[in-house]
């Protein structure tokens, strides 16, 4: 059933491209219907996952020989990790359509690129074949470029090109690594399960793993390759930045987990020597993740542009995902997957509020200009939604971020206490930058001048529309649900992670 998420998204993209240009309403509703259908399938597939308890192998939906000469299969399969991320994609897709309800420029093309991107993302999460995964991964890159370059805001062409080139550099590294792995394995199948069992030589894994891992981690925003993320997020239109932070960065993290760790488990082994206190690639990447957590939070604290705050906070939160992966223990990796879901929802909500609810009305994101507007009075909905999202982002108990980051930190403590101690700084700063943004953007005590008050009277901000409310409620409900009852996700994540860490099939 789940593969239909891919098919309907691509079909929807094609139909949307052919939609008449002068009927934006039609394109909008069509995109909403397609994305809701995708979400419905994702939820159905997720629910069906419970009826296959503790299965060792992923559930295979379709397995057809695609390129016989190389043994590439059109193999779509899902385990608990895939199901969680497909669910996330479904939610983010619906929310993204709701928050781009006001796109009037070339609406049909917008949703065509949008749905193509969604289809690619679904495809990555459901691929059970190495090269099929790569194909979907690359399909997701091109629409991103156009979404940002055409419908974006600040320095959009620069941001879009930077993002495209970073993504492509990453995927070039991945492709080199994958081709090398394919040739070395000498296997007649490129299914992930087959390659994982092919027994790649340890020495090969040692140099191929960092290549593939870094290639994917570029898209996950790993420091120091994160610089595309803030500029890309800021340049992107609301829906695209929601998707970028919400699901596209997860593509990178998912690749790191499924391909990097899944195929090259020995790549994380000790080198046999110590360099600057680092003894393996695991140490290297874990410290890079920790630096990302702290650095992203500190830089977010210093921003004057509202959206840059959220952009850098994404770098910080994605650091938790990468740190969780590098713990290589059950609880840490569970936390990483849960954090992927959690950050996808929360970052989507934050970007939606900043980009759609605030910026589209005020046409500025500078704190200095937002302060005197007294948005808490004029846009109470936005202010309280941001309080809610901000609290979730800080990782307060009751929200999904808390459970996820706690698990990552516990896992990291088991692996190396210093990782947890240093990351703790990031969490504290995380509270600070959200408070600061909240205060400067919504609850500023800068008094407006008489002139500004007069202007305020004349320019009423547009009222909040129903799609915005629906989107905020949807995302808010999800983060609360996952925070209050994390079992609903962990029950599926845990067995899948266990299998993956055991080095079994995928």
């Amino acid at each position: 059933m789940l593969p239909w998420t891919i098919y309907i998204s691509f079909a929807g993209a094609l139909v949307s491209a052919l939609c008449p240009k002068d009927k934006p309403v039609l394109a909008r509703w069509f995109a909403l219907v397609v994305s809701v259908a995708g979400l419905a399938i994702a939820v159905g597939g997720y629910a069906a996952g419970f009826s296959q308890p503790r299965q060792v192998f992923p559930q295979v939906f379709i397995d057809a020989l695609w390129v016989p000469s190389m043994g590439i299969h059109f193999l779509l399969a899902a385990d608990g990790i895939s199901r969680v991320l497909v669910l996330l994609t479904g939610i983010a897709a619906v929310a993204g359509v709701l928050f781009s309800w006001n796109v009037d420029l070339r609406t049909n093309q917008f949703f065509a690129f949008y749905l193509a991107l969604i289809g690619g993302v679904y495809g990555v999460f459901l691929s059970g074949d190495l090269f099929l995964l790569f194909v979907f991964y690359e399909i997701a890159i091109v629409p991103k470029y156009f979404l940002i370059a055409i419908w974006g805001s600040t320095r959009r062409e620069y941001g879009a090109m930077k993002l495209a080139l970073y993504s492509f550099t990453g995927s070039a590294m991945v492709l080199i690594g994958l081709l090398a792995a394919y040739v070395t394995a000498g296997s007649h199948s490129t299914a992930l399960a087959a390659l994982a069992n092919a027994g790649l030589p340890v020495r090969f894994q040692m140099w191929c793993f960092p290549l593939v891992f870094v290639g994917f981690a570029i898209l996950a925003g790993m420091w120091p390759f994160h610089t595309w993320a803030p500029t890309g997020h800021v340049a992107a239109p609301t829906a695209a930045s929601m998707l970028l932070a919400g699901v596209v960065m997860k593509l990178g993290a998912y690749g790191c987990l499924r391909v990097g760790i899944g195929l090259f488990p020995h790549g994380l082994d000790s080198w046999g020597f110590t360099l600057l206190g680092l003894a393996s690639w695991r140490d290297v990447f874990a410290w890079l993740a920790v630096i990302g957590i702290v650095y992203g939070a500190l830089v977010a604290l210093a921003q004057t542009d509202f959206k840059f705050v959220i952009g850098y906070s994404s770098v910080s939160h994605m650091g938790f995902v990468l740190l969780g992966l590098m713990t290589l223990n059950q609880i840490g990796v569970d936390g990483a997957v849960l954090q992927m879901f959690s950050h996808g929802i929360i970052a989507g909500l934050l970007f939606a509020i900043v980009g759609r609810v605030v910026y589209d009305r005020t046409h500025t994101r500078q704190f200095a200009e937002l302060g005197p507007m007294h948005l808490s009075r004029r846009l109470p909905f936005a202010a309280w939604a941001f309080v809610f999202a901000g609290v979730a982002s800080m990782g307060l108990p009751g929200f999904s971020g808390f459970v996820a980051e706690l698990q990552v930190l516990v896992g990291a403590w088991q692996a190396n206490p210093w990782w947890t101690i240093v990351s703790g700084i990031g969490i504290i700063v995380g509270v600070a930058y959200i408070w600061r943004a909240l205060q400067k953007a919504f609850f500023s005590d800068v008094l407006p001048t008489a002139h500004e008050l007069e202007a305020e009277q004349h320019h009423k901000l547009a009222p909040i529309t129903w799609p915005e409310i629906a989107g905020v409620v949807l995302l808010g409900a999800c983060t609360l649900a996952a925070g209050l009852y994390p079992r609903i996700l962990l029950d599926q994540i845990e067995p899948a992670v266990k299998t993956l860490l055991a080095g079994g099939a995928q």
Partner: protein
Amino acid sequence: MTERTAFIEAAMSYSAIFRATLPETALEVAALLVLVVDLVLSRRKEDQDDRTTLAAVLGVFGCAASFWAVCAGGWRGWNIDAGLLRPYLPLAGHDVYQVAILVLTALTLLLLIDSEFTRNPGEYVSVVLMAAAGGLIVATAFDLLVIFVGLELLSLGLYILTAFAKQSGKSAEAALKYYLFGGMSAAFLLFGFSYLYGISGSTNLIRVMRGVNYAGANGGAPLILIAFVMIAAGLGFKVAAVPFHFWAPDTYEGAPAPSAAFIASVSKVASFALLISISSTLCWTPGIFTAWPRILTVLAAASMVLGNLAALAQSSVRRLLAYSAIAHAGYILLGLAFYSWTNVTAEPVFYYIVTYGLTTIGAFGVVGVVERATGSDKLDSFLGLHKRNPLLAAVLLVLFLSLAGIPPLVGFWAKFNLFAAVLAVGAGPVSFTLVALAIAFSAVSLYYYLQVLKRAYVMPAVDETPIQAHPVTLAVLLVIAAAVVVLGCFPALLQSWIASFYA
């Protein structure tokens, strides 16, 4: 081998020769027919457009007849050693190149219908057909003399086609440059061939190979090396490999659009087919001559790097395509270099050439339409194309993304197959480094392809008047784009078709 040759020699007659050369003959007859028909029409002062259409359609029929001659009948895979009237069995599967050449020629002719650069469409079409006949000969020839005759037939046609826009100074300049470089490279090639003949005493590639083996083992290696370098220079020119690429940007820029498409596709296919024939014979000398693959590797690396870097700086789309063609030639040469290390199947190389040829014809078709509407092929003349002609913009999007190697388009699988084959042949640090270089530079190439697409889709239009494309042109372009998508989504289709020729 000898038994078989003797048998065939005995069975050979003029009728057999005629049947074996039927594909080429069909093209030549069509070429003459087109000339006569067009002459009659021009005497009657028929409408220019009608004459162009009729000439092109007749040309396509000629290709179809030749296609039939290639595919049908029991003489498939046979050809004639015309110099000595001695038949031989060429490499298996080389008729697939003939098929590719004919299809690409037909597509070029269909794109001609929209053109207005000449008042003599009949002459143009007949020169195209004759050049294509040259291509057919080159693709399957197995004798140094026949190879050279075929190459000259092809090249002379290309010089004329480049110069065909008589009103355009650029066209004449491009043709002169092309001609001077081409003449020189033909001299190099002939020089190399003469050494091979001197070493082996024969012009048949098989015997040349034997002679070279013998001479190599008996102190003739320096002579052979000179011959190889000369041949690589001559053929490097044909495929526009660095450092023999200087003609390409000027020719691509100055030639009329259909001629440029023809040079970029048909001529490339024929030249690479020839390179495959030569590589596969020269590398039948295991262990002795690694010189040839080494030469190809150097050319490949230089072409990939320089082609991609130079393309970044171009402001004319045709020059951009020319440098991208140099880069693509680099990838193909890389495949060929490793092909000639071990002589594994040439399928991935052919897959790359034919899909590249198809895509590049489409790209030149789009450039031609835009150029006619805006009067220039500068990047900025593509501004707002998605508003001026959405279909054309969509075709451009598909073709350029395919050239950049984005899945699921056919260009991705071409690169993928080729690189996987290279790694499979020589899994070692050298091949790995070269493939890494190629993949890294194809990531670079995305930048310049996006420069064009950015103007077509992203940047605001200066002029929003619709661009009209001739229905036939548009149909051809849509078919090409559809083929690029479908063959990309089902990569096994083309692979199994190619494999059927090698079976």
